[in-house]
């Protein structure tokens, strides 16, 4: 008996396998399973979407506040530049500009070093000075654990506090053995200072 005959025997004389009830049932059950799962997913997503977004925003705000504790409102300026992912303007309770929170991502050893740089703006009447108020790392998972990851030590990150663009260009201590990762952090801070400085200048101010 040839293969074709066997098939015909099984499915009845003139039935094509596509119209076969057994196959139809299989497809239907699969459709049913995927359908139920999809509906459940949709319902859950609808229920939790806003809540998750609120939590995420709260978390991002907290991260920005960690480097600029005196700020109360952050507004996204929607600028980017080399190594800068986003920049937020920080104002205190009275609405006065006190600084910037900048998310940077500069090349480290294994990948991008993502961090938040807090910048403090002082001065008035168009003449301002810009200094680092704090650096906190967001994602250094591409740096070698135990070597590059040592840039997360507070001693290394603390040295940036109070630095201006000029003093950063002057000196900076890299973590020994982790030159590239340290450079990633430094380049991020530099980019943050640079972009914030340009923003102030564009709005008519002078950075001392």
């Amino acid at each position, binding site marked *: 008996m040839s293969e074709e005959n066997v098939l015909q025997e099984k499915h009845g004389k003139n039935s094509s396998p596509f119209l076969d009830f057994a196959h139809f049932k299989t497809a239907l059950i699969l459709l049913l399973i995927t359908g139920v799962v999809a509906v459940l997913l949709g319902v859950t997503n609808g229920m939790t979407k806003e809540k998750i977004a609120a939590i995420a925003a709260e978390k991002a705000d907290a991260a920005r506040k960690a480097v600029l504790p005196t700020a109360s409102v952050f507004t996204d300026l929607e600028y980017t530049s080399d190594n800068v992912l986003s920049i937020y303007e920080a104002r205190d309770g009275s609405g006065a500009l006190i600084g910037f929170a900048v998310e940077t991502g500069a090349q480290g*050893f294994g990948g991008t070093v993502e961090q938040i740089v807090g910048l403090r703006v002082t001065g008035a009447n168009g003449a301002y000075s810009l200094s680092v108020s704090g650096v906190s790392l967001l994602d250094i998972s591409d740096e070698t654990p*135990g*070597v590059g990851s040592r840039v997360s030590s507070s001693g290394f990150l603390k040295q940036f506090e109070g630095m201006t663009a000029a003093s950063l260009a002057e000196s900076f201590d890299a973590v*020994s*053995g982790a030159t590239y990762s340290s450079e990633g952090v430094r380049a991020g801070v530099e980019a943050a200072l640079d972009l914030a400085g340009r923003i102030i200048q564009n709005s008519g101010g002078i950075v001392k």
Partner: protein
Amino acid sequence: MEDRKKLLLVGTSPHMLTDDNTRSIMLDVLIAMAPALAAGTYFFGFRVLVMTVFSAAACVAFEFLWQLLMKKRSSIGDLSAVVTGVLLVFVLPASVPYWMVLVGDFFAIVVVKQLFGGLGKNFMNPALAGRVFLSGWATLLNTYPLPSTDPGYVKLPVFGNIPMTNGVPDAVTGATPLVAMKGGALPDQGILELFLGMKGGCVGEVSAALLLLGGIYLLVRKVITIRIPAGFLLTFGLLSLLFPPAGVPAFQWMLTSLLTGGVILGAVFMATDYSTSPVGPGAQWVFAAGCGLLTFVIRRFGAYNEGVAYSILIMNSTVWLLDKYIRPRRFGSGKKVKKEAEAIMAEIKRKNEGGEAL
């Protein structure tokens, strides 16, 4: 009874006897390494010699203890553990603490050699694997003391560890020529200085001249053949000659590349290790060329400035494959012979089918 004894003595060819055994070969290797050890001691101080003796003794001790523990026949008499111990120190900077040497010895002998079945059954060079295992202590392993010929040289303490601050040894250290070369520039040292060994680096790798002397001894004693060292050095040299960094004279770059880092040490003493290199001549050439190619690729495109250890270890793990597919031609085999044999077989088949008697 007498007859049976005779029968048992029949072995496969070749029916020749030599005085060579593992012990005599290893002794030759040790003799060949002596000039390079002398160079290391001259350039980095007496600490090197003490460290080498310490490492060799530790390797023998680990092998002895392991075999005692596993109730196996002790094989420390064949001197292979001594060779491993000396080679491991050869690929470490002179400033590493003694405990690191001990850890490397343990990994090389117990994990890489004995866990895989002992001498001849390890698939990786134990000394190199020991060094790579120590790369976890990256700062200690990548700090190279200056050689005694440098004006800034400070004597290393013979015993004990070098004092450290924040995990970095206090010893006066300097960039090896490889650091400059990673930046695409020639190092400060000239070709002659590099050839003699006046540079920072691992203990046994500095003096190319004395390493080559040892290599010639091994060649004369027929412990190694020219194939692996030559294939390694030629491939690596040719690639360096063809692709120098922009603005650097090609020939000088080639010589500098060959004389820096562990290229010669690797080609003469590491890649030629019997149990971790292929058997057939063709496979040996391919193996050696692979080592040269990988070293070039790692040095040029990788994050590290040296790639000899990794390329030899990577090629070590391809040896089974090379031995399987690149076989020497057996006597009486080959395309021509095969064709004739096929013709005869076809004739026999034709006759059989025809019902004719052969």
